[in-house]
């Protein structure tokens, strides 16, 4: 394993740990409600009524599907661009830059 791969693996591990560890330590006691919703609930409890409603409010399952769609679109385009750039580099042999790559 090269040093570069090791650093990449450690970075990925750090990101996963950052979100997994609180979940594990917590042991299922928290609800993990969204902060956006927490604020609107607080304001409504204080007596504020929104003066406009959303034009279209998807039901719970549909909403998670649409969120997944948003993430999928983003991840798809990002993967496409990164793959294209990588392919371009492997197709041009004499690019000496990028020390230490595989």
């Amino acid at each position, binding site marked *: 394993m090269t040093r570069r791969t090791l*650093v*990449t693996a450690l*970075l*990925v591990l*750090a*990101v996963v740990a*950052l*979100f997994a560890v*609180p*979940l594990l330590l*917590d042991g299922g*006691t*928290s*609800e*993990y*409600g*969204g*902060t*956006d919703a*927490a*604020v*609107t609930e*607080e*304001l409504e409890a*204080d007596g*504020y009524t*929104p*003066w*406009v*409603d*959303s*034009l*279209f*409010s*998807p039901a719970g399952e549909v*909403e998670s599907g*649409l*969120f*997944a769609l*948003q*993430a999928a*679109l*983003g*991840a*798809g*385009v*990002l993967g*496409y*661009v*990164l793959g*294209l*750039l*990588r392919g*371009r*580099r492997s197709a041009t042999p004499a*690019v*000496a*830059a*990028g020390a230490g*790559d595989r």
Partner: protein
Amino acid sequence: MHIAEGFLPAEHALGWTIAAAPFVVHGARAVVKEVRENPESTLLLGAAGAFTFVLSAIKLPSVTGSSSHPTGTGPGAILFRPPVMALLGTVVLLFQALLLAHGGLTTLGANAFAFAVVGPWAGYAAYRLTRGAGAGLLPAVFAGVALADLATYVTTSLQLALAFPDAESGLAGALLKFLGVFAVTQVPLAIGEGLLGVLLFRVLTVNARPELERLGLLKPVPVAAGGAA
């Protein structure tokens, strides 16, 4: 950071819309100019937009027992300067306001100001300052991407505090209250987002080196056989 539809009083909603509009228009022109003058930028512009699209869709758990989502506006601001993110970020917010009932049209101006204007500019400033202090590309990317995330949520807290000052403790008290909801939860998310930014730029420094050199993020490496120094 999404202030929900109808949750800002009309005059605040209008004020933030007027404040954000010139940034978004300027951002649209910046994107058009970039694509026209440097068509080879289109790929990386797509990557920058895609990064904010993915990250703003994912709600992550935090140490506070609530969850929130990152913003993903940092890398685009670092690569292409903040104006382009004013447009790309607003497109994301519009998608979420129309299809996901997340945020809203009346609060689009305020949300765009926090997410697509203040976040990218704060991140870009942090990136430039870190680089100016002598740090390399990756540490500066971490600082810039993390701060773009955090600054967005601080701005949202300020917008809410301005609209809903506390009856007793006034603006400062309300600001502390909203920061308590948003900012603390956001700290681990900002760190995680900073690390993701570093991962992205590690890939780019290898595979998109010509672009990063042209955009001034990396100094051109003297080509082999050139004079040694």
